């Protein structure tokens, strides 16, 4: 185990985090809600600890091995969340540590579930930081660190692979540092476009920024208790629906678009499925909601926003969908498992895994009545490696197992009903945000005790890092040298 290298990388990530607290601090000073010192102290404390770690760790060996790669990713997300919780603690917004940690983890993992007891006291700086964690966590902080410091370690692709969502890492350009830079460029460009669009819809700059950051990371934190419904504006909802769908697409697609490689885009099976599922779900929901809202236009308005919100795992709300008929709720429930495309900022199992699981299921059925048929599973016109299929099946099982285990552990606290506890676990692992019942759009996680909040935080981290990096932490052999 190369502890010196791990500490050094953690240190550099801490430095990046401290730097990213600057905008929130500036906003805090500008609005003068009295949260300026909280932001400043958090920033200085993070910077000081990170500085010590960075400059006093002298790794002898710069090469990362696979095991250290996974470990670094898991540890750095925990590190990030702990220090990201400081502003909530220092400002008095969430005075207990489990609450502050939950909020911070929920931010970085782009879940968007909250434990804020009320929306009366909302200091601008800290609330901006809360949304900014979505933005950093969406694309991944290690990706950012690699873009800024590509020479941090040799074989750093282990880091990006463990952090990026999806079963395989597709590099856009030969150098990993350049790939990371391109991803962030696209990310920044899309976020700014959404912010400008929201400004045109009449939002003030602060609200526009909060909601653009929340959409970009597919997080879902809003600075209003009733989320996007607060604006009561069809335009805002339309803009956000479009951008939530866009941020659920693999970022490589945008890169191909810029380079006019239309063939690559047309060939992308995951994108076709993703769009197909989105449109189908919206139409089905619209039909189901017709009896509730009476007219077509408001049905499709609520249906499309909520579908986009759940599929992209953002978790913004324009309506309390917990009051919808059970068929409609079931649609959202199923979509919560799936999430969006690999290589996007969204959570969930990812469309590509669902496609390959379905194809495997189809193959197995076929195999029972035609055992001699040679069946190679294809994706994007190429055969898929059997070892990849195996790992995806294992992932599918692990995902469902973790959701069940999480529900069990949360239920041990003895609060609420089955639906609440189960969807709490699911919404955490899938990084959606709201669930059903007490954790639904009108509720929050605030009613849970510290134990369930810690469990939920771990579930969110597990979901964001796609299980294995976090599970690795609990494997005893990893800690043996």
């Amino acid at each position, binding site marked *: 185990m190369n502890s010196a290298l791990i500490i050094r990388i953690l240190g550099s990530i801490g430095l990046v985090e401290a730097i990213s607290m600057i905008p929130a601090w500036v906003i805090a000073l500008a609005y003068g809600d009295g949260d300026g010192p909280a932001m400043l102290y958090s920033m200085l404390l993070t910077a000081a600890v990170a500085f010590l770690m960075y400059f006093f760790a002298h790794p002898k060996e710069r090469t990362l091995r*696979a095991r250290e790669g996974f470990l670094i990713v898991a540890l750095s997300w925990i590190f990030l969340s702990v220090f990201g919780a400081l502003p909530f603690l220092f400002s008095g917004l969430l005075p207990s540590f489990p609450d502050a940690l939950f909020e911070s983890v929920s931010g970085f993992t782009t879940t968007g579930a909250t434990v804020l007891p009320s929306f009366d006291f909302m200091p601008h700086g800290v609330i901006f930081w809360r949304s900014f964690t979505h933005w950093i966590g969406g694309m991944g902080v290690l990706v950012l660190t690699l873009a800024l410091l590509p020479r941090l370690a040799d*074989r*750093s*692709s*282990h880091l990006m692979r463990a952090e990026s969502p999806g079963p395989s890492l597709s*590099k856009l*350009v*030969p*150098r*990993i*540092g*350049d790939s990371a830079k391109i991803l962030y460029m696209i990310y920044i460009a899309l976020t700014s476009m959404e912010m400008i669009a929201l400004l045109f819809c009449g939002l003030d700059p602060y609200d526009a920024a909060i909601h653009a950051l929340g959409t970009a990371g597919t997080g879902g934190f809003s600075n209003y208790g009733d989320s996007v419904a607060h604006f009561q504006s069809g335009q805002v909802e339309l803009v956000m629906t479009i951008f939530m769908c866009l941020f659920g697409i693999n970022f490589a697609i945008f890169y191909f678009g810029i380079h006019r490689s239309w063939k690559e885009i047309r060939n992308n099976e995951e994108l076709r499925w993703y769009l197909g599922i989105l449109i189908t779900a919206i139409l089905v929901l619209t039909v189901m909601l017709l009896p509730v809202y009476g007219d077509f236009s408001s049905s499709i308005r609520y249906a499309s926003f909520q579908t986009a919100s759940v599929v992209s795992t953002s978790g913004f709300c324009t309506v309390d969908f917990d009051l919808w008929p059970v068929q409609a709720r079931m649609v959202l429930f199923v979509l919560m498992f799936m999430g969006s495309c690999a290589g996007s900022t969204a959570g969930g199992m990812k469309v590509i895994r669902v496609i390959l699981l379905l194809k495997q299921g189809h193959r197995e059925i076929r195999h029972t009545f035609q055992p001699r048929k040679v069946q190679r599973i294809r994706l994007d016109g190429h055969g898929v*490696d059997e070892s990849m299929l195996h790992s995806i099946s294992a992932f599918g099982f692990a995902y469902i197992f973790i959701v069940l285990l999480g529900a069990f552990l949360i239920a041990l606290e003895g609060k609420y009903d089955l639906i609440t506890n189960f969807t709490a676990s699911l919404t955490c692992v899938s990084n959606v945000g709201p669930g059903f019942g007490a954790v639904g759009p009108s509720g929050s996680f605030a009613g849970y005790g510290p134990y369930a909040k810690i469990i939920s935080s771990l579930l969110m981290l597990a979901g964001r890092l796609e299980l294995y990096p976090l599970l690795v932490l609990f494997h005893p052999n990893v800690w043996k040298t």
Partner: protein
Amino acid sequence: MRILVVGAGKVGRTLAEHLAGEEHDVSIVDKDEKVIDECNDRLDVMCIHGNGANAQTLIDAGVSKADVLIAATAGDEVNMLCCLIGKRLGARYAIARIRDPQYNESLMLLQQELGIDMAINPERATALEISRLLRFPFASNIESFAKGLVEMVEFRAQENDPVVGIPLKHLLNRHSHLPRVLYAAVERDGRVSIPMGDFIIRAGDRVFVTGDIVTITSYFKAMGKNTTSVKHVMIIGGGKISYYLSKMIVPTGIHVTLIEKNPEKAAILSEELPHVNVLCGDGTSTELLKQESLGDMDALVCLTDRDEENIMAGLFATRTGVPKVIVKNNRQFFSDLFPDMGLDSIVSPKQITSSNILRYVRARIGGQGTRVEKLHRILNGKAEALEFAVRKDDSFTGIPLMNLKMKNNTLVAVIVRKGKVIVPFGKDTIEAGDSVVILSCEPGISDLSEVFVK
């Protein structure tokens, strides 16, 4: 630069690793998915699975925008085809590894017709290296610069060498008979440094000295080293390197004894090399070696396919008292161990090939801007010696070296002016038209102006 490497074998991977380390955009193509997966894990390059001689694969890999295409697959024909297609699709330079001796005879024609800018034959390049080592048996390694005017020679300092134990700046006062050479680099305990005036050479150090051939030869004579030329050589293993080597050294009057295990191969060799004493037998059998009077040989060259056999035979020969032992070893992992065992002259075709290609690529960075004429990676790649041609508009000409600020761990080793070799000291200047040899422990220098800090 954008570089496309086809074939992720030993050479391809080494090249990709070095070029990526020098901030180039490298893509690597191989048809073995396992190999590609491994590359993806270990290298910061774009890895593409496919057949490198297939036009579509090359297009997907971006050959049309590639500055250099390097074909280093196992097959000569694949490499040639790859270069032919790649050149047509827009690659600026194409480099191919072509190792079959039969193609070698018509190489010029092939290169012209196929548009290959550089053809490298690893076995031939290795043989060339060995033949140079045989010419200067006192050196464990040798690099020549400025069209052979300057030699950079490596030797291992021994307890009774006059240079041991004296600070370099007092060396001339103590031993006035020693010709003046430049101590360019020293490796001690696996670490390379450029020695300053206070440096004291200790026994066991690997020392690099530079100077012109005559001075170097007299320097080693004054040191009491073996400068008698090699007359009798024994080669173990009858592969391609042995064939090329025999072809090169037999005309210079060296007697060659070649031992090959396989009777058919031995027969072909004896037919093709009439002046060589070809024996059929096991080169690792001490019985045979004694019988063929190994002890009387001036040099032994171990070139079998198996690294282990080469090393064992080499160790045996060193014990028997053969003055010069050259061993082929392709595995880099253990190369640090050999000097401790007394094996100083290790040749690795893989490393020779990759440094030849690297040299060619380096020389083409940025079009006319830079001018690396020659590049040698020494001390297992821990240091580099680079030769540059100085142009008229270079900013550092005419300034005494002591007034120039140099990059760390870098040294102006030699200046060649109008065919004369100058071992530079503080007062010497660099002038337009000179050839300059730079030694650096930091790899990746591609321009002389990078050496002098403004």
